[in-house]
C-alpha cells in the first residue's frame, strides 16, 4: 500500500472516531459557522470538541509547516479534504487568520511573527479582521489615507477603515497604513498588526440590507503599533496586500461551489415547484435550473482544473480573478433562482412558523459577493489587462 493510501485509511478511521455526528450535518445558516477567538461562545459542545480535536492535529491549517500547523503535503491535504467531504464534515473553523493573514505571514515573515501569531490562529484562539478599505479608498485601494507616523520603536496610527468584516468580534486586525506619505501611491504602504483592545481602536457596526451586521466602521485614533508588528518590510505592504487579495478571491470564488452535503438547486426546485410527468412543473424555470446547474458543474470543474494545473506547475497565473468573478456571479444567480422558485415563501422575513427569512437574507447577502474582495468590474479589468493584454 502506498503511503498516501495508508494516510487515507488512517485519516478515515480518525475522522470516524473524532468527528461528532452533529458536525456531519449540513450547515443551515451563519449560526452554524465556527469562527473562534477570545469572544467566541460555542454553539454546542460538539462544535467545541470538533475544533479542539482538529486543532490538536494542526488540521485547521493542514498544509502549514508542522511547527505551526498540520505539516501535511499537498496530496495529503487533498486526501484529508476528500475524506472530510466524504462524511460531509463541516469545516471546524472559519478564519481570516487561516485564509488570509496566516499565509501572508508564512510567506513574508518575519520569523518572530510566525511564532507569535500562527499557533493561536491554528488553535482558533485569535480571530482576525481585515482593515483595508477606507471611505475614500475602495476599488482604488492604493489611495488609502490612514497614516502611521514613525516614533522610533513604534508607530502612531490615525485614520478610518470601513466595511471591516467582524471588526467588533475580532481580536486582532491586519491593517494597511501609509508609512511614507511622500512616496508614489503604492510604494508608501505597510501592513501592520495590532490588538483590537489597543487604546484608540473603536468600532461601529453597519447594518446590511440582509438585516445582519457583519461589518463595521473602524476608527483609529492615535493607536500605538509596535515596530516589530510589520509584516514583511516597511513600505512593502502593497505587494503583500495584492498577494492576500489573490487568496481572498480564491476563497470568495469558492462560494460558487455547492457545499458537500447541501441540497442541490435541482432538488430544491423539485421540492418548491413539484414534478408533473417527471418534469419540473414550470417549464421556463426548469430550463433556468438546468442551465444554472450545468454552469455550476463547469465552474466546479474549472476550480478543480486550476488546482490540478497549479500542482502541475502550469496554468494561467491570474485564474483567481476569473474564479472570483465567475463564482460570485454564479452564487448571485443561484439566489435569484431560489427566490424565484420559492415565490412568496422567499419573501418571508419573520413570523410564520418561526420563519427567520433565511432565503431572503441569504439572497440579499449574496449581492455583496461581487463587491467584497474586489468587485466584479475590477476582476474583469484584471483579466483584460493581465491575461488578454488589452489596455
Amino acid at each position, binding site marked *: 500500500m502506498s503511503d498516501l493510501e495508508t494516510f487515507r485509511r488512517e485519516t478515515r478511521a480518525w475522522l470516524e472516531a473524532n468527528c461528532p455526528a452533529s458536525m456531519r450535518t449540513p450547515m443551515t445558516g451563519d449560526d452554524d459557522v465556527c469562527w473562534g477567538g477570545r469572544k467566541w461562545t460555542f454553539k454546542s459542545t460538539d462544535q467545541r470538541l470538533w475544533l479542539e480535536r482538529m486543532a490538536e492535529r494542526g488540521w485547521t491549517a493542514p498544509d502549514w509547516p508542522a511547527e505551526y500547523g498540520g505539516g501535511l503535503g499537498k496530496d495529503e491535504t487533498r486526501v484529508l479534504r476528500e475524506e472530510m467531504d466524504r462524511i460531509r464534515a463541516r469545516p471546524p473553523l472559519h478564519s481570516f487568520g487561516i485564509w488570509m493573514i496566516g499565509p501572508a505571514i508564512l510567506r513574508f515573515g518575519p520569523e518572530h511573527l510566525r511564532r507569535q501569531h500562527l499557533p493561536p490562529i491554528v488553535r482558533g484562539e485569535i480571530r482576525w479582521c481585515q482593515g483595508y478599505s477606507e471611505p475614500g479608498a475602495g476599488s482604488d485601494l492604493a489611495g488609502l489615507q490612514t497614516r502611521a507616523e514613525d516614533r522610533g520603536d513604534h508607530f502612531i496610527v490615525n485614520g478610518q477603515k470601513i466595511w471591516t468584516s467582524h471588526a467588533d468580534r475580532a481580536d486582532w486586525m491586519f491593517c494597511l497604513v501609509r508609512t511614507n506619505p511622500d512616496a508614489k501611491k503604492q510604494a508608501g504602504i505597510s501592513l501592520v498588526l495590532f490588538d483590537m483592545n489597543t487604546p484608540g481602536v473603536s468600532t461601529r457596526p453597519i447594518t446590511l440590507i440582509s438585516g445582519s451586521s457583519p461589518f463595521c466602521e473602524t476608527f483609529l485614533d492615535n493607536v500605538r503599533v509596535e515596530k516589530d508588528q510589520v509584516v514583511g518590510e516597511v513600505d512593502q505592504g502593497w505587494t503583500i496586500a495584492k498577494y492576500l487579495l489573490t487568496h481572498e478571491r480564491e476563497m470568495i470564488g469558492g462560494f460558487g461551489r455547492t457545499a458537500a452535503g447541501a441540497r442541490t438547486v435541482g432538488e430544491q426546485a423539485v421540492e418548491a415547484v413539484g414534478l408533473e410527468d417527471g418534469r419540473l412543473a414550470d417549464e421556463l424555470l426548469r430550463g433556468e435550473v438546468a442551465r444554472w446547474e450545468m454552469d455550476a458543474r*463547469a465552474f466546479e470543474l474549472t476550480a478543480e482544473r486550476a488546482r490540478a494545473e497549479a500542482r502541475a506547475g502550469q496554468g494561467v497565473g491570474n485564474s483567481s480573478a*476569473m474564479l472570483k468573478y465567475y463564482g460570485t456571479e454564479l452564487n448571485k444567480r443561484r439566489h435569484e433562482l431560489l427566490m424565484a422558485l420559492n415565490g412568496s415563501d422567499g419573501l418571508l422575513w419573520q413570523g410564520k412558523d418561526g420563519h427567520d427569512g433565511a432565503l431572503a437574507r441569504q439572497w440579499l447577502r449574496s449581492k455583496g459577493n461581487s463587491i467584497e474582495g474586489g468587485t466584479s468590474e475590477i476582476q474583469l479589468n484584471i483579466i483584460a489587462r493581465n491575461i488578454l493584454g488589452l489596455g
Partner: protein
Amino acid sequence: MATLVLTEEQQMLKDSARGFLQENAPVSAMRRLRDEGDPDGFSRATWAAMVEQGFAGTLIPEAHGGFDFGHVGMGQIQEEAGRTLTASPLLATAIVGACALVHAGTEAQQQELLAPMAAGELLTALAVDERPRHRPELVHTRAEYNGAGYTINGCKSFVIDGHVADRLIVTTRTSGECRGRDGITLFLVEPGLPGVEIVPMVTVDSRRAAEVRFNDVEVPAGAVLGHVDEGADVLDRVLAVANAHLAAELLGIAREAMDRTLQYLRERRQFGVTLGSFQALQHRMAQLFSEIELLQSAVLAALSALDEDDAEAEALCSVAKARACTVAELATNEGVQLHGGMGMTDEFDIGLFLKRARAAQQTYGDDRHHADRFARLRGY
C-alpha cells in the same frame, strides 16, 4: 478523477495535430474548397494525410488497426480542427461510426469494417434525424421483418457525410409508436442497395450533408447493429460521444474567434487609441474568456469521463455540448460585432467561424436540447 490537465502524450498529440492542420488544412484551404464548389466538401488528399497521421484510428482498438488513444486524445484533434475549420470525415466516420461499431458491432461487423475505417478507406454516416430539430427518439422510418431480413421505408434529413458514405448507420423503428425509446433498431445499410436515394445538399458552413430516402430497401438480418428494439441505448452512447467531440470542436472555434478578435482589438485604432483600451470592450472580452475557460473544463471532463466509462459521462457530455453551443455562439457573435464592418465581409475569416459554429451547434442537439436532457438525467 477526471483528467483536467493533459498528459504529456496527449499534449504531444494536440501539438502535432495543431502543426499538421495549420500547415495542411488552414482556413484558406476550407475557403478554396468552398469557392471551387468541391462536391465532397472536403479534400480527399488532406483526409489521406490525416489518416497517415493516425487520426482516423484514434478511437479504434489496436486489434482492428487503430491506436486506441481515447476520447481525450481525439478531442484534442477536434479542438484543433475547430480552429482551422477543417472539414473531414473525422466526425462521421472516425468518431460516430467507430464508436457505434466498437460499442455495438458484432465480431463479424467489426472485422469487416473497423480496419478499413482506420485506414480511411471506408466512410460511414449516421442517419438519425427526421425533423429539422434534433429528436433522436422520434423515428418514423420503419424496418419490417420480411422472413429473411428487413425492409426499410422512410426518410432521414441532414445526414452528415451521407453524400460520400460507404455505409449508413440508420435508426429505424421495428416496433411501437413513432415516439419513445423502445422499438428502435439500428441498421448498417449499403447506400448502393436498390431503393436508397441520396440527395446531397450544401450547408451554411460550406460543408455537405444529404437527405437519405429509403423505398422498400431490403437488408439481411445480419445488418442489424446491436439488438433489435434496443437501439436507444446504443444511440445514447453514440450521440453522447458525438456531442462531446462537437463540443471540443466548438471549443476550438470559440478560442480561435476570441484570439482573432483580441488581435484586432490590439491593432485597430479609433479616436487615436487602440480599440482594446475601451473598457466596455475589455469587459466583454474578459467575460468571454471566462466562459471559454469553463467550457474547456467541461469538455475535458466529458471526454475523460467517456474514457473512464464514468457513470456521469452522459450528463457531462450534455453539459459540455450545451455550454459549447452558448459559448461558441457568444464568441462568434462578439467576433463579428467587434470587427465592425470588416466582420461582415466575406473576405475576412471571422464570418466563417460564425457559420461553422451554428452548424456544429445544431448537429445532434443545441444547448436547449442538452439542457432538457441534462434536466431529465437529473430527475427533473
